[in-house]
């Protein structure tokens, strides 16, 4: 702002301290939050078939056997289906279902094996 023949004029906006301080702290908090990596949900994802549904499926199988559409014998309609886990819902009550956690963890391990560089970079984002 060198002064010329007519001089010069400068304007400066001042933010009050009571507004400035929380903003600074908020940014610092965002930087802290940024350090927290992905925290997956490890609980139950998919509800398992209920006993009544299993009975209906068994009935379908028996029907198919009775009409010669399936081989005779003691077959379980749920054969080939994964066994559901029991999840505690409190009060001594359990709910039957499946969690995608094992598949998710397998995928994470697999990407670390197949893309180690990227996986390391990813991990470093959350170091310290």
């Amino acid at each position, binding site marked *: 702002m060198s002064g010329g023949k007519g001089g010069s004029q400068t304007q400066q906006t001042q933010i009050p301290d009571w507004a400035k301080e929380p*903003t600074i702290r908020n940014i610092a908090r965002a930087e802290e939050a940024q350090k927290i990596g992905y925290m997956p949900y490890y609980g139950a994802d998919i509800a398992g078939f209920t*006993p009544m549904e299993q009975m209906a499926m068994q009935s379908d199988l028996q029907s198919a056997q009775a009409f010669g559409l399936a081989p005779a014998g003691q077959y379980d309609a749920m054969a080939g289906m994964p066994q559901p886990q029991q999840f505690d819902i409190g009060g001594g009550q359990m709910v039957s279902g499946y969690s995608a956690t094992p598949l998710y963890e397998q995928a994470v391990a697999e990407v670390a094996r197949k893309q180690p560089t990227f996986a390391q970079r990813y991990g470093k984002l959350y170091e310290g």
Partner: protein
Amino acid sequence: MAGSAQAGGQVAQPNINVLASQGVQGAGLGTVAGMQYQPQTLAQTNLAPYQDPYTQQVIEAQQADVLRGAQMGLQNLAGQAQQAKAFGGSRHGVAMSELGRGVAETLGQQSAQLRSQAFQRAQEMAQQDIANQMQGAQMRLGASAQLADIANLGFGMGQTVRENLMQQGAQQRALQQQLMDVAQQRYQGYTQAPVTSLGYVSSALGASPIPQSQTTTKQAGLFDYLTLMAMA
């Protein structure tokens, strides 16, 4: 139908699917049998079992009656011939011959008539049997159709019950799935809370009137100084 006995004294509940299947099979077999049914003809029928076993006895009794009458007739002729002092004569011989011819003719006619009646009666009985067999075949065909209807009804009942089981089970599963979804949503809220809370400050600042003070500084120039001097 009662359940079948199993080892350990347990009784297996009848399975509607098996019963329906058996019904369809039975009805099919019954219908095929009905389609293949060939009604018996009278010409192919052995009439011997239908013959009256007493026919011969009836004929013999009839013949005995006729012969007894003939004997009485011969005795009358002999008496008449003696009174006419013509016993053993030619007229007596002609009369006896005439009586014998009539007796033989009567015996033949009556015997033939009785045997014909017996044959007709045997034919009628055989015909009745053929009609009974046809009626039986018709009833079996009707029973097959009824069995098919029952089997169809049973299968439909089984399917309805099965559908109800599936629907109720699905409702129960949906409730459990909802529980899991809510848990997952709340967990997402938990993990997102730090990020979400960052916006609170911005929101508060945006909602609050912030007075902005402007400081204006002016650096005087040559013209300013000349103006000031002129005014002095």
